[in-house]
């Protein structure tokens, strides 16, 4: 099933499928968000936003709005 990264539950894993924001996708790719890469939602900030994900061997935090430009297959 394909859905935006922000809709994973805490601890859920998925595989990056595609991006829907061109400018942002470049920055994301440079930081290791690559199509096919396994990604896991590891923390959610107290107010529900931002979230922290584990990808390419490290943990990155990003806002929900940014996370939702990443479509994951899970």
């Amino acid at each position, binding site marked *: 099933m394909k859905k935006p990264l922000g809709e994973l539950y805490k601890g859920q894993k998925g595989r990056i499928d595609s991006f829907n924001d*061109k*400018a*942002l*996708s*470049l*920055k*994301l*790719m*440079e*930081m*290791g968000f*690559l*199509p096919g890469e396994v990604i896991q939602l*590891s*923390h959610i*900030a*107290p*107010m*529900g*936003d*931002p979230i*922290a994900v584990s990808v*390419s*061997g*490290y*943990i*990155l*935090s*990003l*806002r929900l709005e*940014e996370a939702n430009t990443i479509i994951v297959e899970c």
Partner: protein
Amino acid sequence: MGNFPGVTVEKKTGLCNLENSKAEIIDLPGCYSLAPKSIDEEISFNVLCNPNNPDKPDVVVVVADASNLKRSLFLCTQIVDLKIPTVLVLNMIDQADKKGLTIDFDALSVELGIPVVYTNARKQTNIRALIKVISGAVSVSEKTIVDVGYLNAAALNEAKSICSVNNTYSAFVIANSPSVFLDVDKSYLLELSLQKHNYKRLQAQSSEALHRYAAIGEIIKKCISHFPVSESKINALLDKVLTHKVWGYLIFLGVLFFIFQAIFTWSTYPMDLIEKGLIGLSGWLTDILPSGILVDLLCRGIIPGLTGVLIFVPQIALLFAFIAVLEDTGYMARVSFIMDKAMRKFGLNGRSVIPLISGVACAVPAIMSARTISNWKERMITIMVTPLMSCSARLPVFTLLIALIIPPDKTFLGFSLQGVTLMLLYLIGVVSALLSAYVMRLFIKTKEKSWFIMEMPDYRAPRWDNIGITMLEKVKLFVLSAGKIIVIISIVLWGLSSFGPDDTFGRVEQKYSANEYSQQFSEKEIMNKIAAEKLELSYAGILGKKIVPIISPLGFDWKIGVSLITSFAAREVFVGTMATLYSVGDAENSSTVREKMAAAINPLTGGKAYTFAVGFSLLLFYVFALQCMSTIAIVYKETKHWKWPLIQFIYMGALAYLSSFIAYTIFK
């Protein structure tokens, strides 16, 4: 590499002894790629890619996180493709071991065509080997990891000649970020040429990133083997507590409380020492040097100006030591993480927390630390509202005025009312900073999208030597950038308060040399009276009286007017000016200033000059007004435009005037 929020936003240089020579080492701010997205990344980009940069390196040493080689190789292979002699250092090799990674250094060196050295900088492992490699001749790699020529050869060829570089990849990265260092004409030419060749910037960059990661994937397959190990649980556990919806905030508050307590209590002793030392110095110089205008300038203009700069050194050093510890341990990233949502409501960013908090010590380093905010709008708003946080220079003014208008024995809910008032003033500062940010959010326009993609590093013990260096650097930066301006303005203000029109000063001295005074008063009392009367008749005094019609609605008299003018350079000058005006002599003894001010009579009403209304109105004025030349200077330096400090000065002045006016009208 790594862009953890914090203080590493300038390039740093140092000298290093190599085997047969000396080298200048430039440490650049961390970045992930050669496509800069914030000011600190632009600094690194400029050094690496600008062929005309005076700091253009002979050898680039890429320090990569060995435990996360894939991402680290992204920047490294980009630099290899720039055709600059490069050495790859795999740092944190212990972390890689823990993760069960085995790296074949020789194979990696062959694949990249550059020397590869492993180190553990924290434990100083293998640093000698690195020095040996750098000392030898490092040549340009013969490999090209990604040949971008396939993207749009015609456009890139023309870009090469416009940017005067002979390497296609250099032309490629400059074409993608032309505004960083190209002048207007060249970037216009480049833009036209790229359009002519139908060059699609984003598409090209994405395509490069994908190709590069594909190439890196191949390299890693050949050089790294992975053994499964059980992962440490400490990080996850700490994250659970520190980003918890209750504990996370409570711990953060506790940390803040501790830092403030430490800054205020630990710095008292060195601050006293600096102040007493310099006052002593100026007194001693006055005694031993012949009296004259130059000595007066030195002792009453330059040395007090220097005191005004140096007095902040202990607080700034401590604040940055604490910030460096928080950054180094990885805690700062968690603070930004849990604060982002709340800060965003006010048009700020999780990373704005650091500048805003630092603003309580001093706005100058605080505004500098806003550089890590990559979004232009959020950075501007942070810079604009940070000076509203009550900085340590306001503290002497607050203490004096609170003692003047609030009786020390009064309590509020069991706490000293004086202390509660002080806290209230700080709160007003915080709330007005957030509200101003909220309003500015509506006015500052940008097309740029805000983002908050940030690495959450593993928790580690702080590196104490690194913290010591950060402290020194920040202090140096403050003394040099703010110090110059404070000293200059102090000299101007000395001039304004030491000279008057015509021969008024001579007449004052003549008046007090009459016998009736020498019989009635001691020599010291006469000296103080002369000083007070001279200040009243000086240009500063005249200006103070001129602005009375403007400030009388706020309840201020000409003496406050003079103090407002003299404390324009730095707020704490207020106390010294008051001391002179009430002929106390030295500002050393603030309790005598307070007694004199408390006894002062308002000639119009016959009652006390410093009523609650006047005192509170003045306090509010100092909460809001931007009376700090150093802040104005640093805002100009950081925004590169006079518009911003000007707007800031006006809006904060308006807030000050309005709130003082309202307070005075209500309490009068």
